[in-house]
């Protein structure tokens, strides 16, 4: 038996510090390096995805515009620089796939989770460092396979990020990019699933088995709770998407008929298939796809719940309610996938069955939002950039969530589902909100990651312009949708919709502007990395374990120490030795009634 204070870690150190360059920076087993690698990949992916969105927006606003260079880059898809409708769809597919899988899944979950989670629970590393390394490199391979679709003759697939069958399954007869491009897409996503399954496995085993002495579940920081719940959701979701991708690949290359019905004629060619079910793909895909929304957003919930109290100098309101609500969201996220399929000819009774849990899931989400607002109320707020992005997160999440109430009703959704209303809705609630979570986390943990502070002035300008920018982009989309602008159209040039083009131009200008603002963020990242002021161990006077170690942490996170946890993560706004907070490892007793 070990005595308190000299706890043995739950697992022996798996590996010593690396010595070679390759082991240190490339094939590293260190969770901190792997986390940064994931964030690096996400950064490359997010700028790729953003440039693609610019191309789409430019075409929507100026359908006849010849984009310089595009014609040379891709003569088939954009002859003379003006993109064909098919090429617009290719770009849309790649934008969605890159953003959902390689940004919204990798950055908040695999990236920050990898770096922060083991330190927050006082572990030296993840439970399976080798799987962890594999997880990143497999994900990286998946990204390369996906991007390679740009370089095959017919270009990337045109079937959207949801790759609905039979369009995605029949091969090149279905349109440009549906041959090799779509196959590369399916292979990429299958590989991606393997990478994320390895990641989820690691997160779960690490959280369950490697917590340091005193780190009970009740004392676990909220970000770690969120990553843990996310990893359980991810384990289920990617275990379902992987078989779906395998069946899709087989339909593509082996002539099977899982998703392709009999008697299908495409481009005057009878497809040699029998009896497959296109709806089967939709069911499998959305059984993954809806929880995927929560894989993207739950880490943001955790990050905001962690950061808000630190800058409100006040304990988070109802931490147990928060955790219970997050678990409820995770559970309910598997009961609502059919609400993506109201347009598939679903029986109205089934639609009601999916509509009710969709409305119920808004209850825990609303409770969490109220907890955040309640936490802010009466706090002594410190408006750091990180805090601003947290508040921004709450704002965009509420704005996007409210349109969700409308879409949850099948009768309204049938009208709105195919329009820009949905585009605005999910970009707010899943895209922008998750991005704000990523920004908040970056400004918050950058000092810990690199030992240097980020520039706060630049950060605040970045926040203000981004916040205004995203509202200018996505709010008008709701009106466009109500007015009948169909999503996935490459241009609105017919008589009825022509009148909407000025609004499309406004959105495009806002998108170009907001995108350009992100260069400010990139500059701040690079400059702070090399020229930023040196970061103290605990620059934000926060309570959790990562702030007890040096910035950046040593190879084994705590320099041979095994922290002993005596307090929860929520001890703000009280009298402690260091000020108005008590660290999780502090030996102080809680004041009476605290």
């Amino acid at each position, binding site marked *: 038996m070990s005595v308190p204070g000299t706890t043995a870690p739950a697992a022996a150190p798996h590996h010593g510090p690396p010595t070679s360059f390759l082991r240190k920076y490339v094939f590293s087993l260190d969770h901190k390096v792997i986390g940064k690698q994931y964030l690096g990949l996400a950064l490359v992916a997010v700028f790729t995805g953003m440039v693609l969105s610019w191309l789409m927006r430019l075409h929507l606003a100026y359908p006849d515009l010849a984009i310089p260079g595009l014609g040379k880059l891709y003569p088939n898809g954009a002859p003379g620089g003006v993109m064909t409708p098919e090429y617009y769809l290719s770009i849309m597919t790649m934008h969605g796939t890159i953003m959902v899988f390689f940004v919204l899944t990798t950055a908040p979950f695999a990236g920050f989770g990898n770096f922060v989670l083991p330190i927050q629970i006082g572990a030296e590393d993840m439970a399976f460092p080798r799987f962890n390394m594999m997880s990143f490199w497999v994900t990286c391979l998946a990204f390369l396979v996906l991007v390679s679709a740009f370089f095959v003759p017919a270009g990337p697939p045109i079937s959207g990020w949801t790759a609905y069958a039979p369009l995605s399954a029949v091969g090149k007869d279905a349109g440009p990019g549906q041959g090799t491009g779509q196959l590369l897409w399916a292979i990429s996503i299958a590989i991606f699933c393997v990478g994320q399954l390895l990641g989820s496995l690691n997160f*779960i085993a690490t959280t369950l088995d490697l917590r340091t002495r005193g780190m009970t579940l009740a004392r676990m920081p909220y970000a770690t709770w969120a990553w843990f719940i996310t990893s359980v959701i991810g384990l289920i979701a990617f*275990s*379902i998407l992987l078989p*779906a991708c395998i069946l899709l690949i087989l339909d593509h290359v082996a002539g099977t008929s899982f998703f392709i019905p009999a008697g299908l004629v495409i481009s005057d060619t009878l497809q040699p298939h029998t009896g497959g079910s296109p709806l089967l793909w939709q069911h499998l895909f959305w059984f993954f796809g809806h929880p995927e929304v929560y894989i993207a957003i739950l880490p943001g919930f955790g990050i905001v719940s962690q950061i808000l109290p630190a800058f409100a100098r006040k304990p988070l309101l109802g931490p147990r309610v928060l955790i219970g609500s997050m678990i409820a969201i995770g559970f309910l996220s598997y009961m609502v996938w059919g609400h993506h399929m109201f347009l598939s000819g679903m029986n109205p009774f089934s639609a009601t069955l999916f509509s009710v849990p969709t409305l119920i899931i808004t209850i825990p989400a609303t409770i969490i939002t109220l907890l955040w607002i309640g936490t802010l109320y009466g706090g002594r707020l410190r408006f750091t950039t990180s805090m601003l992005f947290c508040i921004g997160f709450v704002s965009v999440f509420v704005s996007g969530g409210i349109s969700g109430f409308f879409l949850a009703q099948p009768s309204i959704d049938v009208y709105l589902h195919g329009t820009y209303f949905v585009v605005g809705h999910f970009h707010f609630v899943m895209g922008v909100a998750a991005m704000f979570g990523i920004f908040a986390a970056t400004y918050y943990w950058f000092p810990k990651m690199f030992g240097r502070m980020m520039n706060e002035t630049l950060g605040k300008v970045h926040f203000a312009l981004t916040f205004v920018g995203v509202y200018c982009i996505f709010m008008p989309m709701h009106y466009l949708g109500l007015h009948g602008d169909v999503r996935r159209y490459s241009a609105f040039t017919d008589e009825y919709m022509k009148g909407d083009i000025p609004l499309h131009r406004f959105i495009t200008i806002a998108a170009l502007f907001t995108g350009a603002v992100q260069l400010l963020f990139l500059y701040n990242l690079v400059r702070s990395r090399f020229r930023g002021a040196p970061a103290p161990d605990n620059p934000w006077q926060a309570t959790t374990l990562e702030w007890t170690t040096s910035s950046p942490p040593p190879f084994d996170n705590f320099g041979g120490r095994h922290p002993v946890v005596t307090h929860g993560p929520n001890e703000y706004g009280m009298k402690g030795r260091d000020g108005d907070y008590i660290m999780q490892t502090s030996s102080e007793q809680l004041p009476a009634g605290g």
Partner: protein
Amino acid sequence: MSARALRATTPARTGVWVGIAAIVLMVAAFTGALIVRRAESDWIHFRLPPIIYVNTLVLLASSVTLERARAGLEAGTRWLTMTFGLGLLFVIGQVLAWRNLAAQGLFLATSPSSAFFYVLTAIHGLHLLGGVAALVYVLGRARRAQNVAGALDAAALYWHFLGVLWLYLLLLLTVQL
């Protein structure tokens, strides 16, 4: 015995359980797809190659030898080697089963029933090869006289699961509802 060995769970054991959960879900997705597809008229009923039943016995026997190996590892690695051999024998038997089907003209794309047979057995076979690799790892440690209790424990859990999974697949592929 150290305090660590007394813990109810180890990362290896948790890891295997989580892996099992992932495989179960994956098979559940395939099962769902199979049930949907079986309702269509192009589903052909065919008799499974008889060697499948021999394979089943081989796999069940391997679980028994693995338990013998766990009971008396001090007596040498004979039972463990035998488990490894039976595992390989099962994989060879599965390849023979595929060849038997192909000889009957039943290929991957012939019918959804043959497609599911190939896909499910291939997925199970791939996971079984992972189990074989785990046995090789344990054997290697045992040969070098290193402590194998934790690794063997995790490998055995995974191996028995693959046996149960196989019985489920056999039931799924033979029972006609």
